[in-house]
C-alpha cells in the first residue's frame, strides 16, 4: 500500500491505532565532530501494536531505550529503520502537513512538571500555546477550550490558576497543567514519561488516577513509560519490559506480575519493594553488574552477562526469538525454546 494512498474507513477501524514493527532508533556517534565512531543503538528491533483506547506500560531502567522509543512516537526522533504506522499510515512518508496534524493526535506528559512548563508564561498562556500552534484563531474559543481542559484535570476554579506562573503551583498542580496541555488538542494517544516519579507519594496516586480517568472517558490510548512496576498495575492493561534497546517481555499486566518469564523481568520485580518491615531483615537477590553500553551491546541475548540461567553457547551467541507462552504473553528468552 502506498503510504500516501487514502485510508478507507474500514481499514481505519481494522488497523491498530499505532503499529510499530522492528523499529530501530540509532544515534550516530562522531569523533571530533565528523568521523564516524559507531552508533548508540537506543532502540534495536521493537515491535508492538497500540489499539484505540488501550493503555500500555513500557518498563525499564534508564538507558534501556524507552525514552528514545517514546520520542520516536512523538516525532522528535526519526526512526533509523523499521516501521511506525499511525492509523495505517507510515510516518516515514508523512508530509509537513501530516506531521503537524499527527502532533495534535499525540499528547505528551513529561517527568519533571516544573521543567515542562515555561517559567515565563502563565497557565493561560501555556495552555493556549498548542491551540495557537494548531490554528485556533478565535481567542474566545481558545479561552473556552483552556477552561474545559482545566476542568478535566480538575484545576478548578480555573480563574484561580489562569494568571499564575508555574512556580506558584505545587508539584501535583503543575503536573495537572502538563496533562491539560497534553489533552487540549483532543489527541488519540498520550505518551506519559514517568509522569509521577518526581511527585510525592500522596500525589502520585492522584495523578495516576486522573490519567486513568481521562484515558477511559476519552477513549485515549496511553503509553505509560516508567521504571516503577508497582504503579503499573493500577494503570495499564499490557506491559512491555525493555532491556538494552530490546523488548524482552510483553504481557498482560497481571500475567507479568504473577508469572514473569524473562529473568530480567523477574529481577525487576524482585528489586521492587513494598512497605514491609521484613525487608530490612534480608538482602535482596539481584543480578550482578549493570546494563550494557548501547554502543557495543553483548552478542546474543543482551541480558546474558548478568543472567543466572544463561545457557552457554546459545544465549551468548544467538539473539533469542519471541516465544508466546500464553496468549498475549511473549518473551524473548531461550529458556522457553
Amino acid at each position: 500500500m502506498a503510504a500516501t494512498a487514502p485510508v478507507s474507513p474500514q481499514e481505519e477501524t481494522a488497523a491498530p491505532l499505532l503499529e510499530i514493527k522492528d523499529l530501530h532508533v540509532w544515534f550516530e556517534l562522531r569523533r571530533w565532530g565528523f568521523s564516524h565512531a559507531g552508533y548508540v543503538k537506543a532502540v534495536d528491533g521493537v515491535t508492538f501494536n497500540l489499539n484505540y483506547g488501550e493503555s500500555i506500560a513500557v518498563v525499564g531502567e534508564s538507558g534501556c531505550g524507552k525514552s528514545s522509543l517514546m520520542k520516536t512516537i512523538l516525532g522528535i526522533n526519526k526512526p533509523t529503520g523499521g516501521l511506525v504506522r499511525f492509523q495505517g499510515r507510515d510516518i516515514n512518508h508523512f508530509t509537513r502537513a501530516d506531521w503537524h496534524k499527527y502532533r495534535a493526535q499525540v499528547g505528551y506528559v513529561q517527568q519533571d512538571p516544573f521543567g515542562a512548563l515555561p517559567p515565563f508564561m502563565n497557565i493561560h498562556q501555556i495552555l493556549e500555546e498548542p491551540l495557537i500552534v494548531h490554528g485556533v484563531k478565535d481567542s474566545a474559543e481558545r479561552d473556552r477550550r483552556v477552561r474545559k481542559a482545566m476542568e478535566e484535570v480538575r484545576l478548578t476554579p480555573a480563574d484561580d490558576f489562569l494568571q499564575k506562573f508555574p512556580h506558584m503551583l505545587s508539584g501535583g498542580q503543575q503536573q495537572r497543567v502538563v496533562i491539560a496541555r497534553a489533552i487540549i488538542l483532543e489527541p488519540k494517544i498520550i505518551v506519559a514519561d514517568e509522569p509521577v516519579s518526581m511527585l510525592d507519594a500522596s500525589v502520585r496516586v492522584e495523578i495516576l488516577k486522573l490519567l486513568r480517568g481521562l484515558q477511559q472517558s476519552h477513549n485515549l490510548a496511553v503509553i505509560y513509560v516508567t521504571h516503577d512496576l508497582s504503579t503499573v498495575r493500577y494503570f495499564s492493561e499490557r506491559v512491555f519490559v525493555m532491556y538494552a534497546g530490546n523488548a524482552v517481555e510483553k504481557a498482560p499486566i497481571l500475567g507479568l506480575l504473577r508469572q514473569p518469564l524473562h529473568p530480567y523481568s523477574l529481577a525487576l520485580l524482585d528489586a521492587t519493594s513494598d512497605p514491609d518491615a521484613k525487608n530490612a531483615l534480608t538482602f535482596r537477590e539481584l543480578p550482578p553488574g549493570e546494563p550494557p553500553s548501547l554502543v557495543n551491546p553483548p552478542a546474543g541475548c543482551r541480558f546474558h552477562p548478568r543472567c543466572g540461567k544463561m545457557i552457554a553457547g546459545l544465549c551468548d551467541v544467538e539473539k533469542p526469538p519471541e516465544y508466546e507462552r500464553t496468549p498475549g504473553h511473549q518473551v524473548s528468552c531461550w529458556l522457553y525454546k
Partner: protein
Amino acid sequence: MKTIKRTFAELAQYPSAVLGLVIILIFIAISIYAVIAIPYQKAVDLWRGGEKIWYKTPKMVPPAWVNLFRAEKLPDTFSLNTLDDASLKQSTPSGEGQKISISLDFDYNYDSFPQELSLYFTSTFAKKAPFVSAVWVAPDGRETRLVDYALQSPKQTFRFSQDKKLVTRLFGKLPQEALFAIPKSDPLTPLKGKYQILLQITTFEKDSSVDVEFVQYGQVYGMAGTDHQRRDLSIALLWGMPVALSFGLIAALGTSLASMVIAAFGAWFGGWIDELIQRITEVNLVLPFLPILIMIGTFYDRSIVTILTATILLSIFGGSIKGYRAIFLQVREMPYIEAARAYGAGDARIILRYLLPRIIPLLIPALVTGIPGYVFLEASLAVLGLGDPVLPTWGKIIQDAEFNGALFNGLYYWILEPAALLMITGLAFSMLGFSLDRIFNPRLRGL
C-alpha cells in the same frame, strides 16, 4: 507590565540602583533639554563658528564657579552693549549729526586682572565717519584717555592691549592690568570699586548712528569655561550627552539583540549554521577592533553613524555570542522545549517564544552595564581623532584639551569636565546594571 512594575519595586530596595537611575534620568532630561534648546544645526554652527561667534568669550579660562573655591577672586567675563540697553546712550542733535555721550559703568571687585578688554563699535554712515573719544575713569577719579579717532568701517574693534598709544600712555604696562591697578603698587594689585568708560561720539550725518559694546574678558567664564577657540565648553558638554547616551544605548542594544538572536538561531538549528556562526565569531574575535575602526575612520568616513554601524557590526560576533549560545544550548534541552516540539511548534516560534524569553533576564542587566563601554569607546575614538567631524562631543573636548596641552598649562577643568561626565555615566549605568542583575538573577541575591 506587571513584571516592569515589580522590577521597579524591587529596584527601589537598592539605594545604588535608585541613585544610578536618578542620574540616568537627569542625564536624559539634560539631553532632551540640550537637543531642544540648541537644535542640531545651531549646535554645529556654534561649535564650528570660530571668532565671529565667540568674540565675547575669553580664551581657555575655567568656569565661573571656580571663584567659589578661591580666596582671590578671578575676574568674570561680561559685556555692556548700548544695543541692549539704550538708556546708556544720550544723544543731542548737533549740526547735521548728533553728539552722543555714553557712560558704561561697572563694578570691579576681583583680585586679579582680566585677560583682555575690548570696545566694539557698530556704526552706520555714508561718507563722514563718526568721531569717537573714550576715557577710562577709575574709582578714585583718575582719568585715562583711551582713544580718540574717527571710525574707519561700520564694524570696528578697539582692543586695549593692542593699542600702542594706550600702552605708551600707561608706561608700557599692559592696559588691562594698568587700568585696574592701584597706582605704584608692586606687584600690581587691582583697585576695587566702580569703574566708568565715558565715550563722546560725534556723528556728522543725519542717519548716522553708533553703538558700542564693551567686553571684559575675565579669567573665568560661564558654567564650563572655554577652550582655545574661545568656545563655551558647555555647548559640547551639553550636546555630548545625547550623543554619548544614544551612541551607548544604540550600540549596546543593537549588539546584544543581534548577537542574542544569532546565537539563538545557531544553538537551535545547530549543524552548519552553528558552525558558521562559531567560525565567524572566532575570526572576528582575533580581528583588532580599534585598528579597523581607525581605518574606517581614516579612509572611509568619520561620521558618527558610520562609526556606530561599524561598532555594532564588529561587536555582534563578539564574546557574548558564545555566552548566549552556551545558555541557549542548555535551554534547548529543557523539557518545555521538547513539549513544544511535541505539539508542533515551528522553529521560529520556538526561538522567539521559548528560547529568547529565557535570556531576557540576563540580557537587560548586561545591556545596561554594557552601555558605558560604548560611551567610552565613542569618547576614545574622538580622542584618537576619529570623532564625528561636525558634532560636539565629550571625546572631542578631551582631544582638543590634549592637543593644546591643557594639563601642562594647568587647565585641568578642560579635561576633568568631560572625564567627570564620562565617569558619572559609567557609574550610573553600572550601579543600575548590577542591581538589575541581582533582581533578575536571584542566585546573586544573597551576595
